[in-house]
């Protein structure tokens, strides 16, 4: 049967077989030994027509509660933000999304320049010298940063705050197995990394200290004090995972001496889509520029002196260095980096700060409202757009009741640690209205009793 994606006709086939000099296409598979040839029919669902399939999958999609059917206060690393309409229109240009890695710069200037602009936007936001073309996500970017710090310092011990995203922590541990790193977890005290424990563990064998800013609980880590602690261990690197939206308001980690700043650009233009694909970023100092994992785009000139862009410093990468490469990353998240670039560009010099502050103001309103309602907000320090509420009873069952009222409740911190049982992490972004916040807090207060 002729399929719409396959243009070969019977007549084509006949002519082509003749040119090849065989009677049938089966002859072209004769080199597959009999004993491993598959002679069955794959037991998978039969093909459906375009209309029928779309209908079926729409019905499947409709089974899911989603961020449009319900009002969400769920964040914990993935956030619902304003996405300018132009974002999807740009990334739907098929010249972008049907291209691959720009190996031929003369016909890939669009993609290369878009990446160059992404690198610039991220450098600006993080306060770092250079940024790469993107990583899979914030979690693997952080794990790659840890491995880079160990490789660069030739040290094996890494201190990771328990206030980094728990799934990033898990990924760090998996990535650390290859090079055999010693991951030491630093406790959380009053919502912040316990700096006295960090200081006690910090020694000359420490490759890096790893923090999240703002951290997983929404609190703003005192990076200045961390930097002061590191003054005595000059070789130890400071690795920071940062929500880039928060950096519209907060002093960027680069100014506190961070050596590597990574994070998740999902906040800029990328929908939640069940956790992926999102877009990791990786920014660092000039000193580490030649050690960065992944692709880098650099500016140069063509034969006429015209400005152009190419993939550069490729000697770092797997396809050149092979087994000497320090990272194996090949594909990255280019299209999502483009989406983030469009969103960051639309927000521009003032919009990122405006949006960050709007998040902070609405989150503070929600926090005050919660406190006024009698809910216990557990940390009192500076925070970004998330805070923790200690509830009476199991968060999962509370969320179930909230769902019936049309809300997706906050993150159940009890899933991470027993210490945080009955604690809900609430995210309030710029898109939540006063009415939504009022109603949500009222329902939560009612359930909490």
């Amino acid at each position, binding site marked *: 049967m002729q399929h719409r994606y396959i243009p070969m006709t019977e007549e084509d086939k006949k002519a082509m077989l003749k040119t090849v000099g065989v009677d049938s296409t089966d002859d072209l598979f004769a080199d597959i030994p009999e004993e491993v040839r598959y002679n069955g029919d794959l037991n998978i669902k039969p093909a459906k027509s375009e209309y029928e399939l779309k209908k079926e999958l729409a019905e499947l999609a409709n089974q899911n509660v989603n961020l449009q059917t319900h009002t969400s206060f769920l964040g914990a690393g993935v956030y619902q933000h304003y996405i300018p309409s*132009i974002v999807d229109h740009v990334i739907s240009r098929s010249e972008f999304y049907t291209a691959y890695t720009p190996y031929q710069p003369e016909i890939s200037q669009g993609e290369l320049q878009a990446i160059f602009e992404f690198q610039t936007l991220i450098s600006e936001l993080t306060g770092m010298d250079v940024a790469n073309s993107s990583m899979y996500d914030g979690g693997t970017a952080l794990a790659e940063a840890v491995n880079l710090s160990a490789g660069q310092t030739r040290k094996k011990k890494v201190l990771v705050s328990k206030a980094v995203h728990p799934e990033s922590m898990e990924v760090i541990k998996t990535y650390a197995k290859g090079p055999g790193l010693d991951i030491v977890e630093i406790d959380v005290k009053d919502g912040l990394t316990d700096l006295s424990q960090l200081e006690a563990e910090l020694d000359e064998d420490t490759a890096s200290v790893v923090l999240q800013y703002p951290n997983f609980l929404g609190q703003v880590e005192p990076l200045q004090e961390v930097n002061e602690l590191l003054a005595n261990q000059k070789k130890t690197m400071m690795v920071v995972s940062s929500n880039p939206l928060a950096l519209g308001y907060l002093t960027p980690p680069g100014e506190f001496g961070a050596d590597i700043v990574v994070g998740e650009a999902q906040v800029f233009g990328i929908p939640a889509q069940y956790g992926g694909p999102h877009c990791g970023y990786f920014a660092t100092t000039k000193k580490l520029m030649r050690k960065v994992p992944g692709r880098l785009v650099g500016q140069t000139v063509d034969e006429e002196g015209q400005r152009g862009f190419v993939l550069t410093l490729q000697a770092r990468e797997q396809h050149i260095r092979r087994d000497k490469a320090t990272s194996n990353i090949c594909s990255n998240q280019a299209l999502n980096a483009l989406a983030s670039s469009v969103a960051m560009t639309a927000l521009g010099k003032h919009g990122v700060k405006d949006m960050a502050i709007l998040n902070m103001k609405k989150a503070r309103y929600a926090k005050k409202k919660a406190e006024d309602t009698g809910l216990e907000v557990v940390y009192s320090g500076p925070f970004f757009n998330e805070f923790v509420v200690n509830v009476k009873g199991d968060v999962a069952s509370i969320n179930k009741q909230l769902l019936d009222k049309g809300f997706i409740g906050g993150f159940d911190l009890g899933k991470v640690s027993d210490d945080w049982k009955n604690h809900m992490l609430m995210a309030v972004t710029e898109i939540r209205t006063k009415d939504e916040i009022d109603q949500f807090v009222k329902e939560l207060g009612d359930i909490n009793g």
Partner: protein
Amino acid sequence: MANLKDFPVIFELSKEGRKGYSLPELDVPDIDVDQEFDDAYIRKENPDLPEVSELQIMRHYTALSTRNHGVDSGFYPLGSCTMKYNPKINEDVARFPGFSQIHPYQEENTVQGALGLMYDLQTTLAEITGMDEVTLQPAAGAQGEWTGLMMIRAFHEENGDYNRTKVIVPDSAHGTNPASATVAGFEAVTVKSDERGLVDLEDLKRVVDEDVAALMLTNPNTLGLFEEHIVEMANIVHEAGGRLYYDGANLNAIMGYARPSDMGFDVVHLNLHKTFTGPHGGGGPGSGPVGVTKEMAKFLPKPVLTTDGDQYYFDHDRPHSIGRVKPYYGNFGINVRAYTYIRSMGPDGLKQVSENAVLNANYMMRRLEEEYELPFKQHCKHEFVLSGKNQKKLGARTLDIAKRLLDFGYHPPTIYFPLNVEEAMMVEPTETESKETLDEFIDAMIQISNEAKDDPEIIQEAPHTTVISRLDETQAARKPVLRYYKNEE
């Protein structure tokens, strides 16, 4: 100063006071957030992002898109990348709010539709590869490779086998293979190819010993040739206690004709952005599911998506798991596209995909071998490798030929890879291209070969028609400029 002809970067369009965004209004009582913070933590200067209007942004990126070649722009026979058509229904389905607007921390009972799709995709990929279980967690092919190798490592360690330090890769292998081996803590050891482009069995026997953890292989290999001795190779490795890793980069050649499990592979990764039409996106995002045999299943990254017959759920209680390789549950949006594609094709359609991909490649190979050196003469699978060494003697290197192809509106083949073929050109047409397109490309290649004989300069100076001529890559690497600076001299 910027050259006047230079195409502007977005920062050069910026003008103080312009705006490209529209934020919700502040509908809660205004407060001064600065009060709460120590002054050191309040950013003093805004990041220097552009100030541009919405139309300026749209025009900028539209113009950039016209400076980019995609599959929808024209033929893209980039070997080993499977640049096939990206169906538009995939894009529509991935954007359904029920798929794009769901949060990974929603309760499982609120996302049963998404989990059902993922589970069905796992099962379907297991059937296509013949493996017992599949994880969708890895973000891309290279991450899948590393995930698979970490599982093999865990397997050996569980057997008390701590001395298996070597991972064998053919000299024709993709660079990610040895790099993944290193990142997983192994030493990569190369096995040679023989004169027919296949793994040299004698050399394989030489490098396989009690230290071998795994052999990594694509089959068909990167030369587009089926490793005919796969059964014997599997036996050599298995008898030494090693495991076989299948790099699924080239699965497009064999769907419905052969399955990695039947060839003896223990671990398989797939590139859903190649065979299963996840768009390449200018370099990603991809998706790199990994399939394993029963003996390996307990090492799968956690959590594992499963079902009790009533509900789909994630099993976190996996004591032997290598751990998590990626936050959340993989690149779901890409997995939705791949699933949509598979459901559009069905079992017969997928077999037809491989049949036509292989016929297209063989047709091109036979026509082109009249003008270009073909180092390996047997039938190929979905791709083939030519050598430009005869043209090089005439002054037209493979790089030049690639640049000349740009003038004809084509993306060139993969060049200088694999490493074991001089002046290599690796051509992968895919099944979605018509005979007319193949013929036109072949004619262009023949014309270029004739130019090499008569007028090599036209090739050496190519491209002639692109928006930019050849770029100075040496300067780019020697004095790296990796971001835009406003007051650039």
